[in-house]
């Protein structure tokens, strides 16, 4: 069973539909017991970091997330869920979960492309990834694959070692970060067509280890 954590941070319908479509059983839950009892955890989220942290604490899920990380359950952070696993966010100037050292930054403004065109913020639409380190969850992902992004902030881990992949948008920012049994993607795999589904399928069968 894959637990999709519901902490009032956006609509989880598409994540749930995608996991079900792939043939895995899943539940959308805010119950600590259900999260502890699951084999793996998807930690999604859209919205603002400040409110998300308040909701997580109110529901007691901040502690549960750290706990399941400690017992080596595979965790997939998506979008806001890939940000608030870090220590702090510039968005609402808020303390976050701190599972990974580092913080969450706002895109610098103004932002320009290599051709010197002004770039819009948020970064919204399809973009590629540059994989730096192979990872079981990225198995089968090809260089030409693109993913759907919607965000104005990005995760910046303290150690380069946590950066699994990057994406270029005016700057080259970490779009996939990983540490032990945690993998987190800034894009929305559930909205990224076949390549996104591939990542979700890889995750749902991942044991949290790195052996090929």
């Amino acid at each position, binding site marked *: 069973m894959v637990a999709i954590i519901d902490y009032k941070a956006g609509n989880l319908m598409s994540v749930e539909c995608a996991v079900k479509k792939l043939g895995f059983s899943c539940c959308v839950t805010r119950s600590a017991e259900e999260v502890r009892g699951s084999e793996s955890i998807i930690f999604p989220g859209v919205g603002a970091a400040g409110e998300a942290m308040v909701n997580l604490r109110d529901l007691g899920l901040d502690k549960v997330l750290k706990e399941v990380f400690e017992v080596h359950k595979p965790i997939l952070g998506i979008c806001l869920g890939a940000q608030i696993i870090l220590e702090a966010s510039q968005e609402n100037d808020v303390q976050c979960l701190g599972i990974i050292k580092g913080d969450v930054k706002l895109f610098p403004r103004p932002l320009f492309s290599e051709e010197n065109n002004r770039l819009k913020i948020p970064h919204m639409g*399809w973009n590629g990834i540059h994989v730096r380190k192979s990872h079981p969850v990225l198995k089968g992902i090809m260089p030409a694959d693109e993913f759907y992004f919607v965000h104005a902030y990005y995760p910046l881990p303290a150690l380069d070692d946590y950066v699994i992949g990057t994406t270029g948008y005016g700057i080259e920012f970490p779009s996939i970060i990983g540490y032990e049994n945690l993998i987190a993607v800034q894009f929305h795999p*559930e909205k990224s*067509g076949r390549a*996104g589904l591939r990542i979700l399928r890889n995750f749902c069968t991942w044991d949290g280890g790195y052996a090929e």
Partner: protein
Amino acid sequence: MLSKRIIPCLDVRDGKTTKGIKFKENIDIGDPVEMARFYYEEGADEIVFYDITASSDRRDIMIDVVRRVAEEIFIPFSVGGGIRTIEDMRQVLLAGAEKVSVNTAAVHNPKIIAEGARAFGSQCIVLGMDVKKVGASRKIPSGYEIVIHGGRTYTGIDALVWAKEAENLGAGEICLNAIDADGTQQGYEMALTPLISENVNIPVIASGGAGDIDHIYYVLTRGKADAALVASIVHYGTYTIRQIKDELHARSVKVRMRW
């Protein structure tokens, strides 16, 4: 670098699409779910549904369509047409749409943009703008006026002023529909699109007039559009989305080529 998006638009009335796909005989061409899946598999980057159901008490039919689409396709899709309240937005988003677009309701009540953005996030709120060229005047300095009721009613609102106001209110994207070009297949309104796109910091989808790949190429390059809405050109089978993307790619426009 972001890819330019190609977005097919499906008009839906009472749960059925109003235009079929000419070159694809083996699917139920009236079924929005089947058509969405077809375009998804053909490489559409996003899909827009426009609900033209006349009667508002039949909205639940559209909600059911949205739910079934969400189960089948895994790219973003938006729903517009007849969205008047926050509750209308909520229903569509909870059924699985990524975005909801408001047009007439926002003209009558601009606060709906701010309230929607606060409730669901700016990324969910698309402002649909129907625009007519009227010539520059003191009241309409840009020369483009916002119209409603399918272009029959002039609002006295300048298109550029409205686009900026909507951005300030929290709209996450603008779908810019040039009423005069719509359905003509004679090309997008090439002066309007960059005027809006270069003066806001949110993405602009150009809509209305695509009849040839050249039109799409120009609106995405000189026109500065972030995305191009396509309807007749794909529904009537003039080109497939694959052909459009192949050609754009060959002409150095960055588009998503693997799906």
